[in-house]
């Protein structure tokens, strides 16, 4: 057997079966070598659907944050936002790969060519109505203050859910959550310090922070409402019923806003799940248009 001369040759050989799929990294399967056996008593299809909910939240928020690249208020912040997005993208890759490992691929496999890994098929070849993210992450960024208010809220919810998911009966989900908790703590605290700095800053920054919070708060209305699937999986010890993190999330957000001299808006009344069931506003389709256009125009592109 001929041995590779350079690491690039090794990358090529490692990928012989897949070609150089142009839109993923092409040479790294995130669950390579991980035991993906589903424990007894867990419905694999439901587990996969739940992983799409958590994975789509991360993928879509990562894409929103990435829209600040070249537009952030300072260079260090651009690096920070990119890092947060990268962590979320990593979580999305693992969760979408987990969904693919149990065969939950929706209609993506009808569109994606064989050589495209499951995680990329799910990211690039599902339409908006197949996405399971909430409006909290799909809503447009607004200005920087609103972006940080949304990141604070979304990271606080996700951190609270992931902290509990560390005990999931699915060992893959539990491992993803345990790793994610360490990262999400950095994300939440980073956003919290910005809300503090802006809220307790100048009149203008205070005004923008308060307006950002006011724009984000209504998006919480369906965040704490479990779908039937989440309830069943919570009973099975796999998932976290989002209603159980409500008090913790309210407490954290109240603490940050009060320290930031901001008024805590009224909490929105509970609404039936929308995003988790595939009901989204036009802003998600718009975001996906950007995210997916290259992959869809050149479905077998290689590099």
């Amino acid at each position, binding site marked *: *057997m001929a*041995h*590779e001369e*350079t*690491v690039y*040759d*090794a*990358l090529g*050989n*490692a990928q012989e079966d897949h070609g150089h799929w142009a839109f993923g*990294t*092409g*040479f*790294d399967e*995130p*669950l*390579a*070598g*991980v035991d993906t056996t589903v424990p007894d008593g867990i419905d694999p299809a439901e587990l996969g659907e739940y992983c799409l909910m958590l994975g789509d939240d991360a993928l879509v928020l990562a894409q929103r944050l990435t829209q600040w690249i070249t537009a952030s208020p300072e260079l*260090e*912040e651009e*690096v*920070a936002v*990119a*890092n*947060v997005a*990268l*962590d*979320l993208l*990593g*979580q999305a*890759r*693992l969760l979408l790969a987990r969904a693919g490992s149990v065969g939950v691929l929706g209609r993506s496999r009808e569109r994606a060519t064989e050589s495209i890994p499951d995680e990329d098929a799910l990211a690039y070849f599902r339409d908006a109505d197949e996405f399971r993210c909430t409006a909290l992450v799909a809503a447009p960024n607004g200005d920087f203050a609103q972006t940080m208010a949304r990141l604070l809220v979304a990271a606080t919810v996700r*951190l*609270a859910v992931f*902290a509990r998911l560390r*005990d999931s009966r699915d*060992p*893959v989900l*539990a*491992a*993803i959550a*345990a*790793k*994610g*908790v*360490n*990262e*999400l*703590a*950095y994300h*939440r*605290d*980073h956003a*919290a*310090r910005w809300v503090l700095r802006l809220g307790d800053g100048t009149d203008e920054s205070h005004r923008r922070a308060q307006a950002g919070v006011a724009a984000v708060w209504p998006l919480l209305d369906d965040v704490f409402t479990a779908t039937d699937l989440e309830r069943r999986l919570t009973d099975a010890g796999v998932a976290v019923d989002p209603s159980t993190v409500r008090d913790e999330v309210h407490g*954290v957000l109240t*603490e*940050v806003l009060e*320290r930031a001299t901001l008024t805590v808006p009224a909490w929105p009344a509970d609404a039936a799940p929308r995003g988790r069931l595939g009901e989204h506003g036009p802003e998600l389709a718009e975001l996906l248009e950007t995210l997916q256009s290259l992959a869809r125009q050149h479905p077998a592109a290689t590099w």
Partner: protein
Amino acid sequence: MSAPVTVDPWEVAAAVTDPELPMVTLADLGVLRDVRIEDDGAVVVEITPTYTGCPAMGVMRADLVLALHRAGFDDVDVRTVLSPAWSTDWISEAGRAKLAAGGIAPPGKAPVRATGPVPLQLGPTRRTAACPLCGSSDTEELSEFGATACKALRRCRTCREPFEHVKEI
């Protein structure tokens, strides 16, 4: 080509350096978790990502395969291990010394992640790091996020030079 029996695949894998921190090896970082030879002669290597989104994993994987191929091991399987999650506490003393010599401040003790809610850290971070250039302990954090997922940006108040710091996780 088969490997001479004198070659220990652990030694080969342990010498592979990190693509983004070339002064330290994957073993120094604690990213390399296990190297073993299966009954059929295949070498199984286990690595764990530093951060979930670490884009260097693919290159690490390829570098490990390349190094082991060059050492005569034809059948190499690099596997990902997610649990337990990587911690900067796994960076060896030798790795910390190499980081410092390379101008990157090594991490302090990682925060303990107990079960239950993760407490908010709203104030300036309490972590400290000595300047790897002049040794001064009078340094400040510029940003918790740096050029790679695993590093923060700091500045030395004594020699005024900026430097990177492997942040605790």
